[in-house]
Every structure is written in structure tokens, then in C-alpha cells.
């Protein structure tokens, strides 16, 4: 299986980035990627498709991420309340860093299906139809997930802070 070795060598970094953005957890990202690759390795010669094995492995990572509830439920640390954080275009660098951290935290507090939609839409740049196919839902559901996710993330960027010296 030299082509499997080559695939892992060439594509593992991208797969790990995908898994990390889904989970926000480096160890879990490695676990999901490893599990997906183990399954792919065991049926490597049966995996077919016009785009090669990568769609298969990505779907496997996604499915595991969406279904890890029973195995990971005891270790999850959901964030109950998203803290509002100051934001606007003229924030200085330190404030932008804080804002990014808060937004990352807000992202981690999203339900998994919503977070998956955000990653697939804004990192993988997939159209809604393809996301719907991956998640096994309707396009309308993808749009609803995106709407709610963006609403919550937007909430993390408000209210507008009153900067010193402003009325």
C-alpha cells in the first residue's frame, strides 16, 4: 500500500487542520484523523470515487465528530454563556487578539452541527448543497445552522464598547 503511505504523508496535515477546526482540541483532532485513516487503510482498495480517497476520509472525520457524543460526553466542556466582547474596526492589536480569543471560544460553544457548517462553509469553502450532502440534511437546514451560528458569533462581538473619551 505505497499509495496509502503517500496519501497520509501528503494529506495528513490538511486532514488534521480540518479535524482541529471541527473539534478545537489537538488531541481529539489527532484521534479523529487517526481513526478515519485506520478505517480507510482497512478498505483502501475498495475506496473509489472521482476525487480519490480524500473525500472518504474527510467524511469519516466529520461523521465521527458529529457522533462522538457517547464516547466524549464526559470530557466535553461546553461553554454555557458566551461573554460579550468589545469590538469595532478601530480596535488596537491587543483588543483584536482578545476578540479573536473570545470568538474562538464562542465557536467552541456552538452545537456540533452548527460548527461543522461554519468550518465547511468558511474554511473548506463548500457550497451549501455539498455541505447538506455531507451532513445528510436539507440545504435549508444548512442555512438555518449557519444563520444561528453566525447570530451567536455576532453576539460575541457585541455590544459596542464605549471607548474612553467617547460620549
Amino acid at each position, binding site marked *: 500500500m505505497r499509495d496509502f503511505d503517500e496519501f497520509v504523508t501528503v494529506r495528513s496535515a490538511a486532514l*488534521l487542520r480540518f479535524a*482541529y477546526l471541527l473539534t478545537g482540541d489537538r488531541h481529539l483532532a489527532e484521534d479523529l484523523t487517526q481513526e478515519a485513516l485506520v478505517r480507510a487503510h*482497512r478498505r483502501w482498495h475498495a475506496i473509489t470515487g472521482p476525487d480519490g480517497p480524500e473525500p472518504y476520509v474527510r467524511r469519516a472525520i466529520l461523521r465521527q465528530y458529529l457522533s462522538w457524543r457517547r464516547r466524549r460526553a464526559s470530557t466535553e466542556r461546553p461553554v454555557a454563556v458566551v461573554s460579550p466582547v468589545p469590538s469595532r474596526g478601530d480596535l488596537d492589536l491587543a483588543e483584536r487578539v482578545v476578540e479573536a480569543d473570545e*470568538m474562538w471560544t464562542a465557536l467552541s460553544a456552538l452545537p456540533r452541527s452548527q460548527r461543522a457548517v461554519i468550518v465547511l462553509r*468558511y474554511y473548506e469553502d463548500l457550497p451549501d448543497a455539498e455541505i447538506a450532502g455531507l451532513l445528510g440534511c436539507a440545504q435549508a437546514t444548512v442555512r438555518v445552522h449557519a444563520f444561528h451560528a453566525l447570530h451567536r458569533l455576532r453576539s460575541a462581538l457585541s455590544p459596542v464598547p464605549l471607548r474612553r473619551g467617547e460620549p
Partner: protein
Amino acid sequence: MSDVEHRVRDLLRRHAAEAPAGATLLTTVRTESRRRARRTRAVVAAAVAVLAGIGVTVPLRLAAGPGTVTVAEPSALTEPSGPVTVTFPLSPAPVDGVVAAPDVRLEAGLPTLSLPMPGGGTATLTVRPTRPAGPVTTPVPVRGVQGFLAGTADAIVWQEGPEQWFELRADPAVPADHLAGFAKSLVATPVTAPAPFTFAVVPAGYAVDNISPGAVTFCPPDLPFDASFVGKITVMLGVTAERSTGRPVDVAGHPGTLTGPQDGYVVLQVDLGDGRLLVVQSAASVPLPEPDLLRFAAGITVTPAATPGRG
């Protein structure tokens, strides 16, 4: 694209750089894959040896040879994390050395034990990790701890562990001191119901929320546990007289019929050849693709503990 969307895109690109490098990933994957291959061979060999020794159960398995399966997508099925059984932490005390056979089930995700009460009626005991919802009123001593009357004073609840609350009621209702007396007769010996079915694979991400001798339900992740079959994948045992017409399919060499989606469900019926019918009902709202549905059914073994029932 809105400002928030731009920020999300930037955020994801920035954090993607924090992903692990996975330097040892290839080695780890190869090692784990070999270990699983060895384990699979060992399990198959052991199963063959056991079946050859007892020759009783009727396992269904797909007889797919090398090169006959084309996998274009990852399966919606996964290996089960353990046997699909339910254990209740208390059991009836032996009387004259004989232990009454309790009826242990999983109902809406909660282990439940039912027993005939002395003098008639049936006692039903449920264990859950938190205190049952609803008001509690009069204190009642139960099994050495302080319990309470609950519901419309027809049940008692008490706690025996950090995440172990019991609720006991009787049908027909009896006074609280009778319930407490009955509870006292139970011993802290767990009792496990024999599994009605075993599964080679299960729907990924689903949780089992009901187990009875006639049915097992798999609840999708976004649905709360309840005692119904609505919106779930349900495995049942029926009788061939109930068999309905549909599209013929082959399930590991057994004749099956596939119907639906109709009334919100796809139903696969597999004739076991002995008057019994294995029924897999999949809600159309959470469809299991047909190849996975057939593979799921092919991996089900009906055990002697299963009894025909209706949902």
C-alpha cells in the same frame, strides 16, 4: 459576505495553523490497523469455534467475497462499544433459595425493573442519575435512608448513591409503607437482562434508549430519549404472519422485503425461516441508506431471549 463572516474566515485560517503536526500519524495508523486486523481474525475464529460447539443461534451475515464490495463513502454504521444489554442495580432477594425472574428493560434510557408484588399487582422500579422531576412531599424511610412520597403520593423516591435515584410505584397503587416494605426486600445485586439481539454494527452516533425482549430502539443524537419508536431506528421480532408485501431484497441469504418510505418509515422485514420475522424500522426523518440498512440487518443475531412483540 458580512463582517462577521469575514472575521470567521480569518479566525479559522489563523487557528488552522495550530493543528497538530501528526509526525507519527502514519506509523500509528499502520500499527492500529494491523492490531484490529489481528483482533478481527481472533474474534471470527473464536466465534466459529463457539458456534461449531453449540450450533444453536442463527446469525445473519453478508456473504461478500473479496472485490464484491465497493465503498464510495464511509459507512453510517460503526462497531458497537459493547453488548446491547441493560443492568438494574437491585434485584429481588431469594426466597427459599429461588430468585424470582424480574423483568428488566431499558425505557426512555432508564433501567427499569418490574416484579409481581406479594398480594397482587406489579411493582415498577426505575433508576436514574438525578432526582425524578416533580414535587416530593412526606418523608418515608426506605432501605435505611430518607425517601419521599412523590407524584400523587403513589410513588416513593430515594437516593442510594451520588448518581443513583430510585423511583418505585405499584399498579394498582398501594400505601407508601407497603412500597417501602417491598423496597426493603430488594438486595444490592445487579441483574442484567439477556440481550434480545446482538449487533455486529450499529448506526453511528445513535444511542440505544429502549431495550425489551421484543424491541430495541436506536435514538438519533438530536432526539431526546423517550419510550416511543417515533423518529428512531427500531429492531423488532415479529412473526411471519405479519409479513407485508414489498420490494424483495436479499439479506445475507435470507428473503426480505423492503417497504416505504410510508407513513414516515422504511421497514425491512427478514424471514428467519422458522416462523419468525426480523423487522428493522427506520424513520424517514433519519434515513439509513439502503445498503447500510441491509448491512445493519445482516449483522443482527436474534438470541433466545427475544420474543415477538409489536411496537
